[in-house]
């Protein structure tokens, strides 16, 4: 099937080489980081995780959201999603690969990565994160590839795939839950110390992931001869709006608890993010932009006439995706570190090098996604020509 990725139009190859260019450019900065150390980033002894770990967290969500196609199709027999479930699984593969790359980019001693396996430590959440992420990658590779292969040969998927598909449902939930546990089990970080962190992670994931899938469906329809289908896109849009509303509800629960109890350890971080603290507020405009985007996304998606108009739908999905990306990818991680344990404000903003290294990771992810989608569309085309 892979041969499909080797033949393509001029536009396809231009896109592939653009991605390769971004990867090469960013990789140059990674070599610099390997040489100098993580000091080329904006991180400090007070904000010890930044852009990389935030992207990792966001992308775990995108990966987990494949379950929003798997559940309706395999558990509720919602046939329409059968056409695009593999798109969700392939998106999950690309996302998990980016997650792993972001973790590696964030390590001070990446060549020692395998120490995590050499000295397995079950009481560290990072150990479990490694297990669930690699497991999820394998499940989606095996399931996605085999189901597509069966479809290509016009035979039903092998029986042994079924248990694996069912397993992928709780497994998807587990990857984002464990990711939340990285944060919410730490005693001194009031911003993250909340039981609703994992549910909120999942809700925002089930908004951002499907929103991105809607956009991918629209792109695939425009650049290939394969149409993911109007019904499919509309159903995904409903998933997006449910997820996005749940996310905002959880967020408001969070805000209420912090604001009403007025316990400084919980309140200070929110105050820093949305209003600034002790005269520092570099993230304030970002956070309000995120909120505005998420809320307008919800409004657009809630109005049936707007949702049914695919141009408006595309805008709403971009709003939702970007809004959640800012909230989770900029605010969530840095916000937990500011103010620091001594209640001092040391701000964080990513450096150019840091953003370029992140761009290289995203480039790699998009390259993987492009290849997988090329294979997927290629198989679909073969079938229509038969």
């Amino acid at each position, binding site marked *: 099937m892979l041969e499909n990725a080797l033949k393509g139009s001029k536009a396809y190859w231009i896109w592939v080489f653009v991605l390769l260019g971004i990867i090469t450019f960013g990789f140059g900065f990674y070599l610099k980081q390997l040489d100098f150390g993580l000091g080329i980033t904006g991180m400090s002894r007070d904000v010890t995780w930044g852009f990389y770990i935030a992207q990792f967290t966001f992308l775990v969500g995108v990966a987990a959201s494949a379950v929003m196609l798997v559940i309706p199709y395999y558990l509720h027999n919602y046939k329409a999603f059968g056409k695009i479930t593999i798109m969700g699984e392939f998106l999950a593969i690309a996302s998990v690969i980016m997650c792993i790359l972001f973790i590696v980019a964030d390590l001070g001693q990446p060549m020692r990565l395998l*120490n995590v396996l050499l000295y397995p430590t079950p009481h560290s959440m990072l150990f479990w994160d490694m297990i669930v992420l690699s497991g999820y990658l394998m499940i989606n590779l095996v399931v996605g590839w085999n189901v597509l292969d069966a479809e290509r040969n016009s035979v039903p998927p092998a029986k042994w795939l079924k248990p694996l598909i069912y397993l992928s449902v709780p497994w998807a939930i587990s990857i984002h839950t464990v990711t939340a546990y990285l944060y919410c089990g730490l005693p001194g970080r009031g911003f993250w110390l909340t039981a609703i962190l994992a549910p909120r992670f999942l809700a925002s994931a089930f908004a951002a992931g499907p929103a991105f899938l809607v956009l991918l469906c629209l792109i695939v329809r425009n650049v290939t001869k394969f149409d993911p289908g109007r019904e499919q896109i509309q159903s995904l849009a409903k998933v997006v709006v449910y997820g996005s509303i749940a996310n905002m509800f959880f967020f408001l629960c969070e805000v209420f608890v912090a604001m009403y109890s007025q316990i400084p350890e919980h309140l200070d971080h929110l105050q820093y993010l949305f209003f600034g603290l002790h005269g520092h507020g570099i993230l304030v405009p970002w956070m309000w932009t995120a909120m505005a985007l998420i809320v307008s996304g919800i409004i657009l998606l809630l109005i049936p006439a707007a949702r049914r108009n695919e141009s408006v739908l595309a805008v709403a999905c971009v709003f939702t995706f970007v809004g959640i990306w800012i909230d989770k990818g900029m605010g969530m991680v840095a916000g937990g570190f500011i103010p620091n344990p001594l209640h001092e404000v040391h701000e964080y903003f990513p450096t150019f090098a840091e953003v370029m290294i992140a761009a290289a990771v995203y480039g790699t992810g998009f390259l993987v996604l492009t290849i997988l989608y090329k294979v997927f569309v290629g198989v679909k085309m073969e079938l229509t020509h038969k």
Partner: protein
Amino acid sequence: MENSRRSFLKFAGVSALGLGSLSLIDGLTSGDVAASSGQSSEATFKRSKKALTAKRWGMVIDTRKLDDEICKEMEKACRATHNIPEHKNKRHEIKWIWDAHYKHVFPGKQDEFLAERLKELPIPVLCNQCANPPCVQACPTQATFQREDGIVMMDFHRCIGCRFCMAACPYGSRSFNFRDPRGDNAIKNENKDFPTRMKGVVEKCNFCAERLAVGKQPICVEVSKGALVFGDLEDPQSEVRQLLKKNYAIRRKQNLGTNPSVYYLV
């Protein structure tokens, strides 16, 4: 309550027996006692006969005896003893012991009408050597671990630089080598008795484990002019216990259940 985190560790350990057996094999094959307990032999200093030992090391800091000069002297001595680099960029800063004002040392105990003496007083902060350390729980490679005498140590050769321990520490006591500490003349006069580190690993105060091993008190205690007292918290006759018996002491964020081994007399 006291040991809840530790018992959770045990529970998690048992529930992951299959995985735990991997480290058991590791211990058997290496034939090293330190390695079989999940610790690296590199990180434990050889003890001489003069070595100071304790069931649980602790420190009492008498803020009434502190002044700017003593605090600066302690920081300087610690830097020199442990080859702590001095970087110009604030973001790359490495600190083992430093001083801060009361409102930063005890952010949960902010008083509107705080005693005048305490407002501007420099108070030293360092690793609390918690009896129930969240950093040890978070570390995915056991590069940071707790010794039998309570000291929380770092294995600089095992650390992968994920900085999970820094997120877990509620006291901001840990530093990361964001750049090469050996370069740029960041270490002025290298102390050959203590290792320098490399870029990309975490470090922190070790209660001068290397000095205890040769019968010396921690360097900050030595230069503190009596403001810092060091000893065995489990020994009722020790000087630290005598001080705690006679004075009301506070600890940093003790509500978090980390059980710090550093006490402050205010």
